[in-house]
């Protein structure tokens, strides 16, 4: 008989993780874990820590600087949240393309991040918005920029005994515009071939004040595009050389060849998406 603990409060959960770190497997919405268990029943965990009942990990709160989203909040609740739709439209968009409704009703934002798939659809959005993670432990908590969370293929900065408790996203700069797009094979439930989020801020003289990107499925982890951002910073929109941008994209990503796509296709799509994000941002188009 497996051991299943579903605590109501965070300290209780952290105590369990601290005293018995290795064997307890954290489960939230279960949309990744239950598939894993089905595909590899021999690796099914014996002991489960179910965090879906922790009130501290639920819900969205607006603060002066931005929004705090409990790690166990469902993608469904996120994509419908009026403030998210109004101020963080890329997050509403990425949550809305993460699987179909029955997945979104269960899948959590924290689970999408902690599962650490290079194809996680909300990862680009969180990178582009400069999200920070609140990570908790029996003895306290720490903050981590989301950009520092993915250490390698499916390897995260979470230490044994730690839980992701919340994601914190600042308000985007006033004159910035977002762009999100997922390229897959079918609209619902397809794993992305490439997805991108971009947040670009341009002043009234047409000079780029800041440019932040996130991409999924183009490297071993979701990644930002530091060389592209560097190239764009301080540059006038009319001075952007597309060939240069393509060169920088190539420096920043390391696409793989797999069953869903070839390296060359991913590189080409990634470059086109970045260019589209840069050039389209000047139109007041809604992301999708």
């Amino acid at each position: 008989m497996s051991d299943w603990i579903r605590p109501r409060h965070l300290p209780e959960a952290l105590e369990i993780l601290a005293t018995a770190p290795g064997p307890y497997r954290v489960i939230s919405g279960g949309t990744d874990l239950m598939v894993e268990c089905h595909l590899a029943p021999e690796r099914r965990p014996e002991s489960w820590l179910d965090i879906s009942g922790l009130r501290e990990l639920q819900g969205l709160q607006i603060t002066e600087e931005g929004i705090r989203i409990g790690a166990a909040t469902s993608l469904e609740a996120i994509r419908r949240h009026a403030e998210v739709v109004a101020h963080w439209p890329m997050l509403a968009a990425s949550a809305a393309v993460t699987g179909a409704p029955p997945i979104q009703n269960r899948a959590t934002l924290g689970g999408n991040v902690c599962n650490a798939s290079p194809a996680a659809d909300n990862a680009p959005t969180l990178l582009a918005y400069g999200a920070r993670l609140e990570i908790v432990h029996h003895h306290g908590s720490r903050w981590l920029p989301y950009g520092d969370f993915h250490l390698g293929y499916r390897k995260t900065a979470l230490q044994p005994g730690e839980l992701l408790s919340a994601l914190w996203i600042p308000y985007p700069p006033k004159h910035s515009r977002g762009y999100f797009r997922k390229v897959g094979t079918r609209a619902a439930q397809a794993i992305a071939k490439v997805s991108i989020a971009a947040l670009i801020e341009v002043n009234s003289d047409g000079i780029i004040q800041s440019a932040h990107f996130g991409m999924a499925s183009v490297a071993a982890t979701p990644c930002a595009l530091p060389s592209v951002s560097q190239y764009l910073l301080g540059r006038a929109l009319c001075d952007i050389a597309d060939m240069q941008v393509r060169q920088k994209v190539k420096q920043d990503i390391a696409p793989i060849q797999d069953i869903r796509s070839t390296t060359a296709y991913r590189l080409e799509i990634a470059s086109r998406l970045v260019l589209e994000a840069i050039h389209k941002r000047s139109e007041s188009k809604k992301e999708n």
Partner: protein
Amino acid sequence: MSTTMRINGKAFQSSSAPNARLLDVLRNECDLKGTKEGCGEGECGACAVLVNGRLVNSCLVPLGQMERAEITTVEGLPEDSALAQAFVQCGATQCGICTPGMMLAATALLAEYANPTLEEIRWGLSGNLCRCTGYGRIYAAIAQVAGGFADV
């Protein structure tokens, strides 16, 4: 350890392990065979049920999370409802494997949008696969219940 829930309006206590799939509890313990297993991986929606009114794939739901949950399977939908009649009239069911999941997805959709557009119908059913009908007849059945496709 046991888990108590309400299934189709009746109290039920399951003695399965907490990591058991809700799908298996429904089919094997409750003998509710209307809920189908297609893929077992969340892709097809044949196992879809409503948990507290929300559409979920029961192959991905561990029993341990169902304490006090209100569960509706296809057997819990009213017999001979307008929806069931529309499915028959429009030819929205052929082999029938997807039909229970489709009816539950349609129920969740219509609870939210009494008069859905074609786009909303497509979205509401996007987690359910059908290998027979080509979907058009299923969309038509839902539109019929709602009094026609809403204009966009």
